[in-house]
C-alpha cells in the first residue's frame, strides 16, 4: 500500500472534510457564541456573568471527585477478586458487569429515584418496621450515589483488563523473593494496574462532571451542576451565548485535566480503554 498521490487524497478527503465541519468548526462556533451577544456583537458579558456560576463549577467538580474516588475504592478490590477466578466464571461475570451498562442511563437513574423517594421502596420498608422515613432524594449524597452507580462499570472494566493481563508467574516470583501479601500488592499489582486506574478515572470523572439528568432526578432540582446550568440556558432560557460560555469553560477544564492525566499515563505506558 505504498502508492501515493491522488489515491491518498481521495481516501483522506471525505473524513477530513467531515471532521473539520462537524468536529473542529463547532468548537470554534462555541467560542464565537461565548464572546458575542444576541445580535452577534463582540462582548465579554457572558464571560463576566460566569462569576455567578463559580459555586456550581466547584460543586460539580467536588461531587465528581468524590464519585470517582468511591468508584475506585469499590472497583479496585472487585477487579482484583474477579481476576483471580477461573476463566469460565470470569467470562460470565464480565457479562454481568456489562449488562447494566447497556441499559439507558435514564432508566437506571429513574429506577433509583423510585427506590429512594419519600414514598419510595426503602422508606416503605422502614415504615413497615416502624422507623421514621429518611430524606434521600434532593441530598448531595443521592446525587453522588447516582454518579457512582451509573459509572461504576466504566471504572471496573479498564482496571480488570490490566489486572487480568498480569502474569501469575510474576506474583509467584515476588513470593519466592520474599514478598508478603501487602508488598505483593504494593510492588507488583499496583504499579502494573496503574494505566487501567488512570483510564478508569477519566472515564468516570468526565461524564460525572457534565451530567444533568442524575442531578435533576436524584437531586430533585435542588442541586445545580454545570450540566444543569448548560441545559437550562440551551433548552429553557434559550440564552445560547451564556450556554456556550459555560460549555467553553467546562471543555477547557476537562482538556486541562486530561492533559494532566495523560502525562501520568505516558510515563506508565499509555491509556487502556
Amino acid at each position, binding site marked *: 500500500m505504498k502508492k501515493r498521490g491522488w489515491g491518498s487524497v481521495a*481516501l483522506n478527503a471525505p*473524513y477530513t472534510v467531515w471532521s473539520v465541519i*462537524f468536529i473542529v468548526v*463547532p468548537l470554534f462556533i462555541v467560542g464565537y457564541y461565548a464572546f458575542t451577544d444576541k445580535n452577534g456583537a463582540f462582548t465579554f458579558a457572558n464571560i463576566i456573568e460566569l462569576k455567578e456560576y463559580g459555586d456550581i463549577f466547584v460543586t460539580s467538580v467536588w461531587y465528581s471527585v468524590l464519585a470517582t474516588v468511591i468508584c475506585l475504592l469499590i472497583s479496585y478490590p472487585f477487579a482484583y*477478586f474477579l481476576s483471580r477466578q477461573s476463566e469460565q466464571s470470569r467470562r460470565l461475570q464480565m457479562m454481568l458487569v456489562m449488562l*447494566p451498562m447497556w*441499559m439507558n442511563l435514564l432508566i437506571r437513574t429513574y*429506577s*433509583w429515584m423510585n427506590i429512594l423517594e419519600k414514598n419510595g421502596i426503602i422508606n416503605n420498608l422502614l415504615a413497615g418496621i416502624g422507623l421514621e422515613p429518611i430524606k434521600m432524594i434532593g441530598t448531595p449524597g443521592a446525587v453522588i450515589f447516582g454518579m457512582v452507580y451509573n459509572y461504576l462499570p466504566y471504572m471496573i472494566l479498564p482496571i480488570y483488563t490490566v489486572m487480568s493481563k498480569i502474569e501469575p508467574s510474576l506474583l509467584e516470583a515476588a513470593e519466592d523473593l520474599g514478598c508478603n501479601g501487602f508488598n505483593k500488592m504494593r510492588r507488583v499489582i499496583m504499579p502494573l494496574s496503574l494505566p487501567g486506574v488512570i483510564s478508569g478515572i477519566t472515564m468516570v470523572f468526565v461524564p460525572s462532571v457534565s451530567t444533568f439528568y442524575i442531578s435533576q432526578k436524584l437531586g430533585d432540582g435542588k442541586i445545580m451542576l454545570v450540566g444543569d446550568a448548560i441545559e437550562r440556558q440551551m433548552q429553557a432560557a434559550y440564552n445560547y451565548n451564556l450556554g456556550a460560555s459555560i460549555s467553553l469553560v467546562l471543555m477547557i477544564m476537562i482538556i486541562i485535566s486530561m492533559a494532566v492525566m495523560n502525562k501520568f499515563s505516558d510515563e506508565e505506558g499509555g491509556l487502556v480503554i
Partner: protein
Amino acid sequence: MKTFGKIFNTCVYILLYAPLLIMVFFSFNESKSTSVFTGFSLKWYLELFSKSDIIEALSNTLILAVLSALIATVLGTVAAVGLYKMRSKFIYNTMNTVTNLPMMNPDIVTGVSLMLLFVFAGRLLGFAEYLSFWTLLIAHITFNLPYVILNVLPKLRQTDVSLYEAAMDLGCTPIKAFFKVIMPAIMPGVVSGALMAFTLSLDDFVISYYTTGADFQTLPLKIFAMTKKTVKPDMYALSSLIFITILVLLIVINVLQEKSERKLKGEFNKK
C-alpha cells in the same frame, strides 16, 4: 481472603442489579404505583403496545441507528485506510487528535457545539427550523466515526502489506487488490466497529437531546419526556422489555463466541 472476595463482589452485583430487578418486578404491578405492589397483572405491557408514539419512537431509534452506523462504517473504514497510508507524521497526529476530540469531550459539549453549528448555519441560510432528522443523523455519524476508525486501524496494522503487493503483481488493480486482500483481513474490525456504532447510537440521549428536531423522537428522548412527569408502570414495562432484549442478545453473543473458540481449539488439537 477468598470468601471475603466472594462476599464483596456479590454485594457489588446486588447493587448493580437492584434497580433493574425492582423495575422488572413493578412492571407487573396491578395498580399505578411504582413502589407498592398490589397484585400481578400484564396490563402495562398491553397498554404499551397500544401506544403508537412508543412504537414510532422505537422504529425511529432503529432507523437512525442503522443509518448512522452504516454511513459511519463506510466513511470510517475509508478514513482508517487513509490514515494508515498517511506519510506525514504531523498531519497524522493532527487527525488523530481531531478524531479523539468527540471521545474526550463530554457528550453535553459535543451536543451543544453541534447544536450551535446547526443554529448558526440555519440562520445563515435562512431556514425556518434549524434542527431536524438530518441534523440528528449528522450528529450520530459524527460521534460514531472515531469508534469505527479505532476498531479498523489496528487490524490494518496487523495486515501483511506484501500480500497486497503480491496481488497487484499478479495483475490486480489497486481497488481489486484492496477488496480481495485487505478487506477480508480487516473485516473483524469493521464489523466490531459497526456494532459499536449501532449500540452507541441506540443508547445515546445527551447528544440527541440537543440536535434533534421537534418532529423526530427516539426512544431515549421519549423516556426522558416520560420521566418529566410521574411515571406509570408502562415506562417500567418498556424498560423491562429493553432489559430482556439486551440480556438475550448478550447470552447469544457469548454462546456463539464460546462455540467458535471451542471449534478453533478442536481443529488445533486435530492437527
